[in-house]
């Protein structure tokens, strides 16, 4: 790969990447430590360059917008280091808007940043789903070699779900928040001008309109690749395999979680019938006691004959206590199932979308490589006189290598995010269950003293019956 490559990176059928005067280009050293250990399989050619990443991938300084030219701020370890972040975004405060044409929900998008690309240090705008969709499309267009995080589904397939229900809106808000955060945390995507516009512009409407048209074009681009891939490098093949297996496991977990929710719901239904029976029984005992009192039978003399918690009869209070305990368990179980439905399942499902995005990027990479191989072959057949490789083939090779580098970096980031996301998800699941049992424990423990209340001993009957 030659040291002087053209300013724009041409690619088949894609719009040229808009050049931005990037403050970080060229001036600074690329200080990178790639976390990926499997660098050995890097197929890009290693050549001496002024600027190159430690793993040997050439840094393309000519095109500021590609990751290789930037300060590639790969997140190093598990937890995102707060100190290196200078862009914070939040999606919250959903509100319903009723206009003449339609009803929709908008969300507040808040930004805090110290980056110079932004005019102000803080922004607060309102955006609707359409706008997020527009942003995503723009990102895919302008950063074809990168993994763009997915958005929640636009339309709800289930049909019965109310688009404006609290649960649905909240679930969606969380997904949108996650999307934006992932973009903002990405070392390349976060500098995208469209993101900037999304976060800062008061009015996105006009641009949003174009999104619908370009979306159609998007699909076509992938298909027109059409080249056959000779040999997929092992590491990318491994990625593909991993994604397939992982998808399967997620599907299984989803099914299990659904089944658990179903079983718990049925358990809940039975509990709701169970508790009141103890209450009825308490009533039977109370009725009996009253009758005995009415016919003047002397029962336990050492208690006051007042109200409900009189333990003269002995059974009424314990029965009501158990009824209460069961009711508490039912309430706690209801909350647990809600948690799982609201928090666990949606996040799990959204990951499938994330996997799909990754798979798409892998496909695109394959396409680019296939194109390169085809061109290389064609050039070889033409038996050109030049000793050097023709420029268009060179360009392809560049693209392949860039793509591979970007992809590997994104893959590592994706794996890291995945690890954190699932750690969070599963920990939350464990917490929900712990909370459930703690509530139940508290309820039963509070009942024990009630159950053990005794009248001042009237059991002097002398029967030691031990079972």
């Amino acid at each position, binding site marked *: 790969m030659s040291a002087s490559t053209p300013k724009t990176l041409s690619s088949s059928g894609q719009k040229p990447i808009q050049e931005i005067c990037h403050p970080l280009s060229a001036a600074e050293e690329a200080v990178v430590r790639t976390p990926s250990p499997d660098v050995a399989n890097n197929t890009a050619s290693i050549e001496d360059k002024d600027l190159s990443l430690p793993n040997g991938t050439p840094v393309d300084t000519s095109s500021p917008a590609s990751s290789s030219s930037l300060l590639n701020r790969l997140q190093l370890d598990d937890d995102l280091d707060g100190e290196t972040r200078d862009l914070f975004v939040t999606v919250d405060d959903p509100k319903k808007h009723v206009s003449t044409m339609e009803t929709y929900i908008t969300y507040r998008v808040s930004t805090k940043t110290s980056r110079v690309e932004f005019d102000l240090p803080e922004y607060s705008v309102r955006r609707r789903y359409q706008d997020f969709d527009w942003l995503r499309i723009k990102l895919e267009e302008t950063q074809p070699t990168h993994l763009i995080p997915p958005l929640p589904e636009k339309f709800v397939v289930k049909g019965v779900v109310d688009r404006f229900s609290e649960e649905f809106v909240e679930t969606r808000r969380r997904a949108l928040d996650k999307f934006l955060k992932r973009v903002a945390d990405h070392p390349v995507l976060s500098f995208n001008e469209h993101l900037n516009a999304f976060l800062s512009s008061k009015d996105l409407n006009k641009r949003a309109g174009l999104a619908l048209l370009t979306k159609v074009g998007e699909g076509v681009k992938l298909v027109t690749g059409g080249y056959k891939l000779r040999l997929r490098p092992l590491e990318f093949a491994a990625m593909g395999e991993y994604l397939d297996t*992982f998808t399967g*496991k997620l599907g*299984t*977990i989803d099914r*299990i979680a659904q*089944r*658990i929710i179903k*079983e*718990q719901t*049925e*358990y809940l239904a*039975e*509990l709701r*019938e*169970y508790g009141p*029976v*103890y209450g009825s*029984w308490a009533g*039977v005992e109370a*009725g*009996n006691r009253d*009758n*005995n009192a009415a*016919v003047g*039978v002397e029962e336990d003399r050492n208690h006051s004959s007042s109200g409900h918690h009189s333990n003269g*009869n*002995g*059974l009424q209070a*314990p029965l009501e*206590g*158990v009824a209460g*305990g069961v009711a508490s368990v039912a309430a706690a179980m209801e909350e647990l199932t809600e948690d799982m439905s609201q928090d666990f399942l949606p996040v799990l499902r959204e990951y499938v979308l994330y996997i799909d995005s990754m798979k798409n990027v892998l496909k695109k990479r394959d396409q680019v490589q296939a194109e390169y191989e085809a061109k290389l072959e064609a050039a070889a057949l033409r038996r050109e006189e030049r000793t050097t490789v023709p420029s268009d083939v060179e360009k392809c090779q560049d693209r392949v290598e860039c793509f591979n580098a970007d992809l590997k970096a994104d893959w590592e980031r994706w794996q890291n995010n995945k*690890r954190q996301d*699932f*750690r969070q998800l*599963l*920990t939350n699941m*464990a*917490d929900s*269950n*712990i909370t*459930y*049992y*703690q509530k*139940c*424990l508290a309820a*039963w*423990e509070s*009942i*024990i003293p009630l*159950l*053990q209340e005794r009248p001042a001993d*009237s*059991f002097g*009957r002398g*029967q*030691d*019956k*031990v*079972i």
Partner: protein
Amino acid sequence: MMADTGSEEVAVIGNTDLTPGEIENNIKNTMGEVGDEEIVLPKKMEINVAEAEKRTVKNAVNMQETYTVYLIETRPADDASEGTNPTPDSLWRRYSEFEILRSYFLVAYPHVVVPPLPEKRAEFVWHKLSADNMDPDFVERRRVGLENFLLRVASHPILASDNIFYSFLTEENGWKEAVLETGFQAKADSRLKALNATFRVKNPDKRFAEMKHYGDELQSVISQLLRVRARVADRLYGVYKVHGNYGRVFSEWSAIEKEMGDGLQSAGHHMDAYAASVDDILEEEEHYADQLKEYLFYTDALRAVCRKHELIQYELEAAATDLSTKKQQQEELATGTVRTFSLKGMTSKLFGQETPEVREGKMKVLEGQIQEGEEALKEKNTECDEFVRSAWSEIERFKDQKNHDLKEALISYAIMQISMCKKGIQVWTNAKECFNKM
């Protein structure tokens, strides 16, 4: 798996020493002839249903019959023999023999709320429990139930000193003959008939009526409780067991992960443990259900005592009515007036008065009958009073026992739930630690 002797429950019953008067009373209470042998009344006995075994024999019609027998061990439990721990006496009994013993009690002591036997067939099952009588778990629970029955009887002031009971515990052979000799079976049939008959009592003792009503309600509510509880158990089982699937999928998933692998794998094991823990939980709850069932079956005995009171009351009222009718007849005969319209009266009017001799004869007969009737009424009154007194004291005793036992059962149920919650917290906390290491 047959009942394991390791888990035997030995109970020591304090059987009060019997005064000579009480001994006599007991003899009177038993039906018919007492055995020829000396009555050796136990002072204190340890009773234990230690084992259960299957037997297969050819029965009367030469067909193979399989049934279960239970080993009853008895041992005197004096303070003197405390240290020595002598080997127990033992014999084998089958369920049907227990049933005979109980039938005998019902006939011999109608004022006693006779303890119930464990159920003949498994009811209120949830799906995991087999409804098969030969199922080892069912047999084991029945063994415990039979032991419980014997302990209840042995701690009952009246039943414990019955000699038929004593020989049930000590004489393997000959017991059946002895009990049949009491002639209780004939009485059992007529008793059943009487209890099931419908009759109206004019002045029932309110307490018994209320107690019968209570018994009905208690039976209904406990049945309902047991039914729903079985369904709850079934559902709980489902919830726990499905979590076991997490164990498998986490294990598979960990295989394709690098850093996450260990955490996932360990968490999976905890999920397996969680799923497995429900078996013990539900087995303990089964014991609670058995305690409820005992009192469910007790309601029948309670109701029987109340019905017996009704019967006696009815007979008393019938005797009183009979007497007053006779007295009325006497009066009519004496005064020659017909108070109420009767066919006889009409006949007399139509066909003329009776001769003085015939009238004398009739008077004499009536006098005799009235005298008999008065004596009978007096007896019935005494019987009724006696019954009311002893039965009500029995009922009081039963009520106290019921309140005590069921309260204990409810407490132990709450404790079971607490234990289950603590286990749940433990497992999920362990899993959470594993997730944190991912």
